[in-house]
């Protein structure tokens, strides 16, 4: 695969870039003008940084977009006292970690299979990857029909084998897990590709030497493939967690957070409160999501990247 030349990990590149190249002559410096930053910085500041900082203030207000009344931490108190909103908070973690873990495990084993000599590798890879590229809303609508409790094909097949036919999106205990499963179905292709790129980059001598020494394929996976694909694992974990914790589209297209509030996450609460006109509360949800995501991602990515460097 021609993928390896775009080297550094998205999230670790900051540590390593530029340090290896010889220092350019000082006279070249003026040919790399700092004003090249300005247009991008302007967009970033206006449309991203300002709203983000403003959100800290507006989350402490009652707000209708024109006038805001400062009410202290009232919105946050409401968020954590209202059981429905609190549920969304907890679901965000469950959803994020479950989808991320499933993508890592499934993606890894699919990648091991697809990098071994299997017939029709290209076809299987294409088929697994294609859902990544299609509209999340479309996927949600599609699965809502496929998992329909009475007419959907999944329950139809289960019925043939006399297995229970649950209401995937309509059973309060199952709704969130069903959405997570669809999320994995849609996203496992990226994880697989990332792991494949990582496995292909391992020098084949390692595998050959291990085979010479009579190692079983399970032992090869455990002692060579897993440790040496650590950068890939880090990338998959980070990307899928960032996506999973912020997930909104698929939940909105399948259950809309229901039945009741049993599949709400923070991102869907933000939208609901926004729709209901509680802009301050909605923004408090945004601030909470911000804190959740950074509190998880910053230590995690520095931990994962440190491990990668140690190897």
């Amino acid at each position: 695969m021609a993928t390896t030349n775009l080297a550094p990990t998205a999230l670790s590149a900051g540590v390593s870039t530029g340090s290896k190249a010889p220092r350019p002559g000082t006279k070249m410096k003026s040919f790399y003008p700092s004003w090249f930053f300005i247009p991008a910085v302007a967009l970033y500041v206006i449309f991203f940084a300002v709203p983000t900082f403003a959100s800290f203030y507006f989350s402490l207000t009652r707000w209708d977009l024109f006038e805001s009344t400062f009410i202290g931490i009232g919105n946050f108190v409401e968020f954590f006292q209202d059981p429905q909103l609190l549920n969304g908070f907890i679901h965000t973690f469950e959803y994020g970690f479950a989808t991320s873990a499933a993508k890592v495990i499934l993606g890894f084993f699919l990648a091991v299979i697809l990098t071994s000599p299997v017939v029709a590798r290209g076809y299987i890879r294409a088929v697994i990857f294609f859902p990544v590229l299609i509209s999340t809303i479309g996927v949600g609508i599609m699965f809502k029909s496929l998992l329909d409790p009475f007419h959907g094909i999944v329950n139809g097949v289960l019925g043939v084998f006399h297995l229970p036919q649950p209401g995937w999106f309509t059973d309060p205990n199952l709704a969130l897990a069903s959405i997570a499963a669809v999320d994995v179905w849609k996203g496992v292709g990226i994880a697989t590709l990332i792991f494949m790129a990582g496995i292909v980059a391992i020098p084949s001598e390692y595998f050959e030497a291990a085979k010479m020494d009579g190692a079983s394929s399970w032992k090869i996976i455990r002692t060579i493939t897993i440790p040496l694909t650590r950068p890939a694992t880090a990338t998959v974990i980070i990307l899928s967690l960032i996506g999973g914790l912020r997930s909104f589209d698929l939940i909105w297209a399948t259950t809309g957070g229901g039945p009741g509030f049993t599949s709400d996450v923070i991102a869907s609460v933000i939208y609901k409160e926004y729709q209901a006109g509680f802009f301050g509360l909605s923004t408090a949800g945004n601030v909470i999501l911000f804190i959740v995501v950074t509190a998880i991602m910053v230590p995690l990515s520095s931990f994962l990247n440190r491990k990668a460097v140690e190897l």
Partner: protein
Amino acid sequence: MKRARTAAWIKGVVAIVVSAVVFLVPFVFVVLQASKNPADASNLTFSLPTQWQFFKNLGDVLATNNGIIWRAFVNSAVLTVCSVAIMVVLAAMVGYVLSRKVTRLNPVINFFVLAGLIVPPAVVPTIWLLQGVGLFKTMPGMILIEATFGLSFCILLFRAFVGTIPRELDEAAVLDGAGAIRLFFGVVLPLLRPVIVTVIVVQSVAVFNDFAGPLYFLPGDENATVQQTLYEFQGQNLSFYNLLFMDILLITIPPLVAYIFFNRQIVAGLTSGAVKG
């Protein structure tokens, strides 16, 4: 040897069947649904249509609501092309200087680039800001928002790729009398072509498929993007599942075409970082 080959074959056949059932059946279902009449389709069963009316449904979808889908495709095309164009040029400029010139500013910028990747955008404050500058519910506003949200990812790819272009080239161009602008736009930018293609394809698919962005920042029928049309079909015409699935089929075509032609670039963009931290 022969036994190993048989085993590989069996493994392969199993893999093909499983992947077909898990990943292709849903798409077959979409096509079947899109070919049914309304009564058939609203059953939601996985069955052949009692009467095939694929092209009638296609015509109906295209005519629904005064042809909202045409407008939506135009809107999505404008949004995608403009925002990705802005993203590519601005991110390439940043990635280039960031990779070439090491200053005390670099760690700060790197930090903000990563923040842009991780931090979820604040929804209502962004609406408030767009209203303040008069860009709420306008296409230019949406374009700038999409461009901003995509910047971080693009900058990371460009910075990594610029590092692989030898500096001697810059020096040679300078000796030949190129200025800073000629050096970048005339010499370096053309060399970035592989990564530019990757960025364009990956981000185009992302913007084209974005649902939450237009939902928040570009409401209104006349501004609907293709993702919003799905929502419309689902919300209002619950008895017309055939048209809903035809709509899904239609808006899947652009990413499908992108995938067929730019398979390798998409893979390269999404897997960069898999190999070495």
